[in-house]
């Protein structure tokens, strides 16, 4: 029988088929962070259970950590206690941990791939919905809740119903200035935020093969914004090149053996998906969101939509609410929207390629007066590389604030937050109300679009900048 990439990984990981049709699935890799793990560790202690495979687990603090003056420690008591709790727990349960002051520290979904912890054909979970990021390597990776974190701690397995599969076939060539973030936003626009619910997405087609590994991570990262717990890209030569020599990846002869096995993973020709959608990459413009849901996506050349055009009352009212929250008027040109803040970072767009994209726009230019722009690298290693490549200097010279790695303003669990009514061009993944700070207004964009907005003080079409 012809199998999809997903089918192959799933079948290899079934420990037991249960009577009710669900399966017990083995988990190869478990990433842990400070926010969703304390109650799971506490659960183990209370029930006197051990952590079955600490050697398949890797922990790091990222959500709560300050991105400046880190040497002074975490000032917020509750945040500090949570990080200290993680440190205490990893010690007690002997889980490998990357400390806060280690140069390898960073966002959990950045450091997994960077350390070679994430590998093709693996199942990988984390108590974080953006675990879908790791699908870029052909790993079946998805977010779980804290009870499931505890389940993986205790058993190294999860009880799962087999999801359906959806092929997202992206063909054609992206125009210059249009990126994988724009593909992701385009897909969410088409599917809606629940169109992927119950599915694992596989991204394929020449436009996906053409993407760098970083670009594939951005795309898979946003799968959850379309409702899909996991997104996948088949591993190829670029994947193996990225993984080779990473610290936690197999080495030498073992690496070659692993590649031989990974080469069997891609979807068989003729394998059947439950659903297929096609996207022509050459037709995509740079995108941005106008509302308070990641499906509220428009081309940069568009105008703010008009609730009057919506027939259904509940949807019309919802759109009006979003516009009121965002402080926008129907018919307003998107390029007329002025911004206060720029955030370049998050598990969606904080990798070296994202920072290069921003620096290319910022080079020789200055951040507009009245705009506060920050760049938060995804890890200490990315930060060092950007400093070595001169990217950091370009951004600092242009007036960007250059920070320490962490989740930062993506979710505002740390001091980096929007003030009420502040408007932000953000490379993160969610424009939910209050996500970046109470009454803050988030527009999701690519790093290039965010940098361009920083320079001009309003949204611009990045393709028009020389």
């Amino acid at each position: 029988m012809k199998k999809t990439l997903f089918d192959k990984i799933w079948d290899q990981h079934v420990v037991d088929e249960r009577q009710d049709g669900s399966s017990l699935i083995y988990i190869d890799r478990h990433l842990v962070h400070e926010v969703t793990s304390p109650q799971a560790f506490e659960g183990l202690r209370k029930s006197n259970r051990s952590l079955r495979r600490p050697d398949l687990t890797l922990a790091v603090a990222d959500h709560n950590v300050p991105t400046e003056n880190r040497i002074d420690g975490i000032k917020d008591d509750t945040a500090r206690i949570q990080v200290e709790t993680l440190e205490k727990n990893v010690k007690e349960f002997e889980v490998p941990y990357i400390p806060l002051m280690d140069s390898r520290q960073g966002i959990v979904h950045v450091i997994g791939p960077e350390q070679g912890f994430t590998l093709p054909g693996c199942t990988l979970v984390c108590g974080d919905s953006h675990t879908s990021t790791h699908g870029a390597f052909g790993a079946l990776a998805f977010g779980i809740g804290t009870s499931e974190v505890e389940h993986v701690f205790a058993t190294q397995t999860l009880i799962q119903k087999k999801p359906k599969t959806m092929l997202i076939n992206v063909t054609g060539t992206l125009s210059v200035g249009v990126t994988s973030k724009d593909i992701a936003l385009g897909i969410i626009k088409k599917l809606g935020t629940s169109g992927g619910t119950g599915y694992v997405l596989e991204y394929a087609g020449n436009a996906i093969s053409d993407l760098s590994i970083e670009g594939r991570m951005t795309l898979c990262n946003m799968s959850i914004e379309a409702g899909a717990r996991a997104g996948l890209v088949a591993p190829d030569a670029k994947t193996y090149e990225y993984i080779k020599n990473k610290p936690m990846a197999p080495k030498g002869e073992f690496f070659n053996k692993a590649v031989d096995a990974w080469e069997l993973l891609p979807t068989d020709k003729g394998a059947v998906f439950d659903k297929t959608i096609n996207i022509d990459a050459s037709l995509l413009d740079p995108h941005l969101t106008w509302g308070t849901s990641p499906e509220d996506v428009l081309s940069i050349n568009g105008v703010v939509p008009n609730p009057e055009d919506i027939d259904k009352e509940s949807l019309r009212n919802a759109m009006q609410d979003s516009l009121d929250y965002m402080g926008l008027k129907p018919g307003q040109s998107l390029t007329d929207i002025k911004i206060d803040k720029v955030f370049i970072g998050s598990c969606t767009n904080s990798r070296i390629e994202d920072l290069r994209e921003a620096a290319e726009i910022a080079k020789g230019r200055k951040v507009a007066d009245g705009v506060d722009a920050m760049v938060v690298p995804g890890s200490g290693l990315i930060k060092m590389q950007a400093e070595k490549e001169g990217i950091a200097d370009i951004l600092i010279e242009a007036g960007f604030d250059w920070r320490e790695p962490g989740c930062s303003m993506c979710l505002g669990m740390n001091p980096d937050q929007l003030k009420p009514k502040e408007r932000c061009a953000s490379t993160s993944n969610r424009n939910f109300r209050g996500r970046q700070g109470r009454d803050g207004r988030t527009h999701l964009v690519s790093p290039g679009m965010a940098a361009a907005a920083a320079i001009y003080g309003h949204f611009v079409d990045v393709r028009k900048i020389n």
Partner: protein
Amino acid sequence: MKSFKKLTGIIASMPQVNIDTDAIIPKQFLKTIERTGLGKHLFHEKRYDQNNNLNNDFVLNKQPWDQAEIIVAGDNFGCGSSREHAPWALLDFGISCIIATSFADIFYNNCFKNGVLPIVLNEKIVEEISDLAEKGIEISIDLEEQQIIAQNKLYKFDIDPYRKHCLLNGLDDIGITLENKETIDSYEEKLKSNVWHKPESF
């Protein structure tokens, strides 16, 4: 885990779509290392104004819905972040059943781990229950029978049999999985032939 068998209670109507977990429990309350105490922060930005005063227009701040035990909502309830703090906050407030036209996957899963029953019903029925909610009329939910009795009407709902069994009996599924320990052991034994079965040390 607390079991869920039957429930009769007031319903709070939240007719919006895409009620996300950031709205259910905002980020500043995720710094806790406990599962309890989150009820007072449930829907924080809707329930309180900037000065932390109760917003009297919000349904959960009005009588009788401040005693609600059920929420009825639109599509894609619980989308976004995987935070289990969302069902913890609902439960801590006193809500142990959500009725909606659809749910986001991770939230849906998280409910069952905490004795919260998520029920999917079609749009027409959700609207009918919403009407009762707005009138402050109680409904009764019977998980064993998989039915809702709402005034003179009876609605049936679907639920996965294993999840139903765990909810009815308040079962911890880690215990159930560990009964299968030998199967996991032998799977792991086979895995050892994979050269990448465990990460190199770093």
